[in-house]
């Protein structure tokens, strides 16, 4: 498969040969960072998801949240779906768990704001 490296503005277009769960070869990269990015991105692409949930009785109406670790890219929309309808009341601290085991990933959504 072909992917674009995200490490620097060059954005190398890399041809990656994958067999099962293993990267066989990476072509087109200019540096080692590109190669290691390709190895992860082609086998198990993950993203840190940031979003909001409804904040009730707070100084604003949205509380920002994120996945405590990156989740599989394929699960992003499912995570969002599960956040719909979640409501939180202050006080909340950064790192407080807002939704456990989001989309069955074993990863939690945590608050990224302190709301006293």
């Amino acid at each position, binding site marked *: 498969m072909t992917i674009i490296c995200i490490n620097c503005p060059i954005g190398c277009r890399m041809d990656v040969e994958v067999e099962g769960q293993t990267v066989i070869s990476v072509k087109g990269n200019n540096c080692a960072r590109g190669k290691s990015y390709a190895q992860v991105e082609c086998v198990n692409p993950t993203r840190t998801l940031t979003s*909001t949930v*409804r904040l009730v009785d707070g100084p604003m109406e*949205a509380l920002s949240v994120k996945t405590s670790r990156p989740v599989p890219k394929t699960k992003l*929309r*499912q995570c*969002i*779906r599960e*956040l*719909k309808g979640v409501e939180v009341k202050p006080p909340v601290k950064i790192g407080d768990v807002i939704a456990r085991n989001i989309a069955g990933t074993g990863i939690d959504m945590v608050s990224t704001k302190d709301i006293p």
Partner: protein
Amino acid sequence: MFDCMIIGAGVVGCSIARELSRYNLDLCVLDKEEDAACVTSKANSGIVHAGYDAEPGSCKALFNARGQRMFEKLSRELDFPFKRCGSIVLGFKEDDIAVLNSLMERGTKNGLDDLRIIGKEELSLIEPNISENAVAALLAPSGGIVSPYEMTIALAENATQNGVKFFFGAKVQSLEKLSGRSGGEFFRAKTSKGCFESKIVINAAGLFADEINNMLSAIKFKVIPRKGEYCLLDSSEAGLVSHTVFQTPGPMGKGVLATQTADGNILLGPTSKDVLDKEDFSTTSDGLSEVLAKASRSLKKIPTDKIITSFAGLRAHVESDDFIAGESEDVKGLINFIGIESPGLSAAPALGEKAAQIACAILSPPRKHSFNPFRPKTPRFRELSNQERQALIEGDPNYGKIICRCEKVSKAEILAALRSPLKPSSLDAIKRRTRVGMGRCQSGFCMMKLVGIISEELGASPDAVTKFGGASTLLVCRNKSELKEEFE
């Protein structure tokens, strides 16, 4: 049954309403828009013309001359921004001097005795940023600038204080003259807000004044919408010109003006193009380039990076090229104001008087002793000294909450606008009253705060708040409330 129904809440309709509110009359003003000054009266040059331009003896000349002299008193009574900054007409070549001379001659015939031609030296002294190519200019010290929408709203508010009823969102669908059981005649207007009846009708419907007249009269008129496009510059550039700077017509036809606005921005424009659609307020890339190209004849340099917005307005042009101001020849009790284009704003106070004279001749009403010519002043935070600000905040802490950072508008002013006589509710209506969101960030920072204040004050959901009424909502739904199928 109203004594008098005024159709149109632009500057002409509101001037008339306010003049007539001096008498014991039941008055109403109907307008299809959500607020006063929503069409031509909000998007024009905001110039009070000295009066050298119109053909001597024409209605334009007559009402301009009378009207422009009324602005000092009116702006004092009603507290709207007006400044007699003077105007100049630039000549760029020797031939132009003849044009300037003929303008001066016309002005003298129209009653102006202070016009004079100035040379290059004096010109560069009073306007240092004017192009080197200008060789001479006609100076008219009595030219002025006014905030056209603040003036219109002020007139409307003062009329309301004095008993006039305003109906917005009331588009006249049909209008007829009927005979009552006692034999007396009256008018009935069917509108989108119900039926209204009155003894006389004053047609101040601007772009639609032809259609209103044509519903009643056999003498037909046609209003041609004439589009004018403008560019508005940041108030940081206010020093660019201090007079209103016109041009003698050049190779590109009629020129454009460069002026300070009454609120301290710089305005360039307008173009002049007849269009078909009376509701086409779009700007065009040709139009905006034309404004800049023509304005660059007048100015050494235009700081185009300081343009904060552009807009287009439509003037109500008629073929006769003069105001039609008076009672209809075939429909008694219908008083028409048709083709009120430039210098309509300058003439508006005089047109108000004219309408009142005609209406009073028909209705012979007694004067209203309780008439109050003064509109209560709302302090404007940005215009005050720090001592005055301190005193205000002590009385009302909301004066210490600045909502619009660019124009320094406080929460107190926004609440006052929301509670003002015409009960405005949209962002643009509040903007016209307070200048909130009119500055260099163009409401980027304050929009949400404003939506919050409006929704709280009106008890409406934030997604019901509009930019200018109708379906012009800003917010559509809460986050995630309309997730698509792929999220399932």
